[in-house]
């Protein structure tokens, strides 16, 4: 074994499964072969609230090739604690698009045709699908995700606002957004006696296995979930979605392997979305810009099926110093699908509001927005009092300002014109927690000089398979070419899911320590690998319990230049720069793409994306890729992501913080702030659509420049 090779963490190692992906050989869930596969097409509810009065499958069953029609009338009851997954369990309809039946057939065409012929009778009830300010049904939940108090208070925020020299009191709204991973949620389910194998598109095969086992009353050991390649998730595949249960139900019902891939249209109903939000932010500062009060009050939606309370105001508990502070969340249970996880839940919408308000405060104080943020840096986590494991948001702002060319910026809004364009620049800070969760891994040396690492991690496009290869190679002291990383299969050692930017930190900890253990065992064996190999296993549960108390977060700064045409309302973003402090970056190539991808989603949050609720019929009006505008390459121009070196010893063996989500945090605020700088008008409702710009064109100072 060599030990004097260069470290491979930090280098730009090529994606290890990249070759399979560019040649089309990488297999995704729907593409696994099996004998005699039956096809499943779900029937979506046509109403938003009510009771099913009858299901007539006659015409559907008459379609040649149809095997069965599943509904609450004949489907076996499912267990488990997620009502979104207990499909066909009752005659109640809780939202439009909810699965009320499904057709299983020999061919996809037969199933799709028959699904249209399943006659479902409804007793519809009046529904309410619109979040609006001060909704009469709004209530304070017991907790917000994942387990934060819904309300926090420090000092006397009302008194401090009353005494403040400068105040800002504004309300921002964000619409619903859909994750829209490119790969639709899909599952191929294969039963063998009472054992179930699911080839599935998810963000964690251990999690999906445990859920399936609970749903069907099986032991986890009777279920295997296989997911080596997943075509994106962005949170929507973190909580298992109904298609995995449906495929397993259908396969058992017909005694054959069965597979289902949701259509893009149906994904808008049953795979989760980011809740819309109404956010009031009040800030109070002294004349020098030092904040004395910060209040962030959020209203958002949940469903009647289960409570999902996004932690939108939580970043306002740690981002800035202010001795008087109030954060609150209220939710309304509407007749909608349950909102779910979407990239940077909490931080993404919450920091949009907070960082927009900070820009308004900077203007009100006559301060540069970077300087305002520097003046309000907290020495320690303001609410918990914990020390920061590391906090380099000021460095990100300063370095970013230099790279972006911020110096000498004229703060006057609405005064720069270039032809038909009004030009402006904006900045916002970003943050995301750096956490890790227990995971197990094994590392094995074989006599051929190779090493195999096993862990039920997920690579949903993040690059985790590659990062884990690098982490293992460094821990073993061997070149990465000698390391095989096996992930994406619940038969591998149990791992946490890919979510909360915790994946690589959680799995990498287990992998690194398993490799260290293996090295010790190898050294104990005199460096010789026995004929039948040698293996070590590591479980990080105890390490994580013993983690010292620190406030651990990644930070960043986002800079945007925008051009606004007040005649058409068009907004372009010629430049976007993100600068991040996220511990040690494990792979320069995959990390940069993650950051830029997040920033692009943030740009789209600001300007392009929006799921419009259908007030009349329920569900969403725009439910395909023709009407929901996922950004195309022409929507983005020059996006750059950089990072600053950060040496944080309080994180994990790699010294890394998660990077999958922070890229989307703050982008929309930076763009909105730049739009204000360009036009002199604040747009506080996202997305900043052309029609919204035109509506306020008379207020745009530059129009008559």
């Amino acid at each position, binding site marked *: 074994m060599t030990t004097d090779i260069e470290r491979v963490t930090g280098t*730009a190692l*090529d*994606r290890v*499964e*990249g*070759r*399979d*992906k*560019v*040649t*089309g*050989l*990488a*297999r*995704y869930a*729907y*593409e696994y*072969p099996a004998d005699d596969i039956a096809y499943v097409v779900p029937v979506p509810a046509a109403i938003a609230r009510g009771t099913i009065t009858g299901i007539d499958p006659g015409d559907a069953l008459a379609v040649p090739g149809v095997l069965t029609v599943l509904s609450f009338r004949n489907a076996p009851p499912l267990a488990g604690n997620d009502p979104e997954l207990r499909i066909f369990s009752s005659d109640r309809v809780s939202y439009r698009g909810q699965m009320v039946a499904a057709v299983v057939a020999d*061919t*996809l*065409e037969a199933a799709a045709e028959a699904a249209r012929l399943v006659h479902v009778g409804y007793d519809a009830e009046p529904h309410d699908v619109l979040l609006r300010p001060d909704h009469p049904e709004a209530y304070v939940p017991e907790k917000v995700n994942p387990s934060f108090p819904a309300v926090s208070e420090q000092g006397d925020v009302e008194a401090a606002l009353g005494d403040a020299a400068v105040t800002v009191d504004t309300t921002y709204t964000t619409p619903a957004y859909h994750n*829209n*991973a*490119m*790969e*639709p949620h899909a599952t191929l389910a294969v039963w063998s006696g009472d054992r179930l194998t699911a080839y599935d598109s998810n963000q964690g095969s251990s999690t999906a296995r445990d859920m399936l086992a609970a749903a069907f009353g099986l032991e986890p050991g009777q279920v295997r979930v296989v997911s080596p*390649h*997943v*075509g*994106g998730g*962005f949170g929507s595949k973190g909580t298992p979605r109904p298609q995995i249960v449906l495929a397993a139900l259908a396969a058992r019902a017909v005694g054959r392997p069965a597979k289902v*891939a949701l*259509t*893009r249209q149906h994904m808008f109903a049953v795979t989760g979305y980011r809740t819309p939000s109404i956010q009031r932010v009040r800030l109070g500062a002294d004349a020098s810009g030092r904040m004395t009060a910060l209040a962030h009050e959020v209203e958002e939606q949940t469903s009647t099926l289960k409570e999902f309370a996004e932690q939108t105001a939580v970043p306002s508990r740690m981002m800035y110093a202010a001795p008087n502070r109030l954060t609150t969340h209220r939710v309304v249970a509407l007749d909608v699908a349950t909102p779910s996880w979407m990239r940077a839940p909490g931080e993404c919408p919450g920091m949009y509001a907070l960082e927009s308000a900070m820009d308004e405060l900077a203007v009100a104080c006559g301060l540069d927005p970077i300087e305002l943020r520097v003046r309000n840096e907290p020495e320690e986590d303001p609410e918990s009092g914990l020390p920061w494991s590391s906090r380099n948001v000021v460095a990100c702002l300063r370095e970013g300002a230099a790279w972006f060319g911020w110096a000498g910026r004229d703060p006057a809004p609405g005064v720069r014109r270039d032809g038909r364009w009004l030009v402006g620049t904006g900045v916002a800070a970003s943050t995301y927690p750096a956490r890790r969760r227990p995971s197990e891994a094994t590392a094995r040396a074989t006599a051929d000089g190779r090493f195999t690492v096993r862990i039920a991690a997920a690579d*949903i*496009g*993040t*690059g985790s398979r590659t990062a884990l290869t690098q982490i293992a190679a460094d821990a073993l002291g061997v070149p990465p070419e000698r390391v095989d990383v096996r992930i994406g299969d619940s038969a591998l050692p149990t791992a946490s899911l890919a979510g909360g930017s915790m994946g690589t930190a959680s799995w990498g900890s287990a992998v690194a320590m398993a490799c260290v253990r293996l090295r010790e065992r190898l050294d104990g064996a005199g460096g010789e690998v026995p004929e039948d190999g040698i293996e070590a296993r590591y479980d990080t549960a105890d390490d994580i319990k013993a983690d010292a108390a620190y406030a651990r977060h990644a930070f960043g700064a986002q800079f945007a230049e925008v051009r606004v045409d007040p005649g058409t309302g068009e907004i372009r973003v010629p430049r976007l720069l993100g600068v991040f402090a996220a511990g040690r970056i494990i792979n320069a*190539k*995959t990390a*940069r*793409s*993650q950051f*830029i*991808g*997040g*920033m*692009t*989603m943030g740009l789209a949050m600001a300007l392009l994306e929006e799921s419009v609720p259908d007030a009349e019929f329920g569900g969403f009006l725009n439910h*395909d*890729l*023709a009407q929901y505008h*996922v*950004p*195309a*390459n*022409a929507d*983005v121009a020059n*996006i*750059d992501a950089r990072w600053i070196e950060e040496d944080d010893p309080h994180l994990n063996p790699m010294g890394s913080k998660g990077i999958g989500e922070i890229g989307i945090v703050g982008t929309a605020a930076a763009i909105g702030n730049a739009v204000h700088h360009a036009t002199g008008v604040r747009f506080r409702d996202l997305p900043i659509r052309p029609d919204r710009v035109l509506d306020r064109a008379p207020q745009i100072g530059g129009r008559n420049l």
Partner: protein
Amino acid sequence: MRVELTVNGEPQVADDVWEGESLLYVLRERLGLPGAKNACEQGECGSCTVYLDGTVVCACLVAAGQAEGAEVVTVEGLADGDALDPVQRAFLDAGAVQCGFCTPGLVVAVHDLLARTPDPAEADVREALAGNLCRCTGYEHILAAVRLAAERGGEGRS
């Protein structure tokens, strides 16, 4: 109905094809070629881009019968044995691949662009890829891959 076509140079026959089936369905479900992806079924995302008689199409919008007698090339047909096509090589080198679901369509679209326009201007690239959505990368590394493949010309085969 029966559909006979050539895919990646091999004659192929699909029997019992329903008249409403797409070329994409025939490729993926009948011929065992799942490289072209099904992500929207309405020609919005480009994940199913393949060559049909030398022209790139969204295979989800082509009826199977329209491919009768046609030459189809999919992402599986671009590499020469173990030697990647220069476009595939550039996607790897530039880090243009993340989840990989849009990748097959993009690789075929870029292959077509560079075959027609070996040294494309930025606007040519953006126009050619206007119909290919990627949710992961933000396009920066994909555009870098196109530039890299163009710079290398035909020399990037590996």
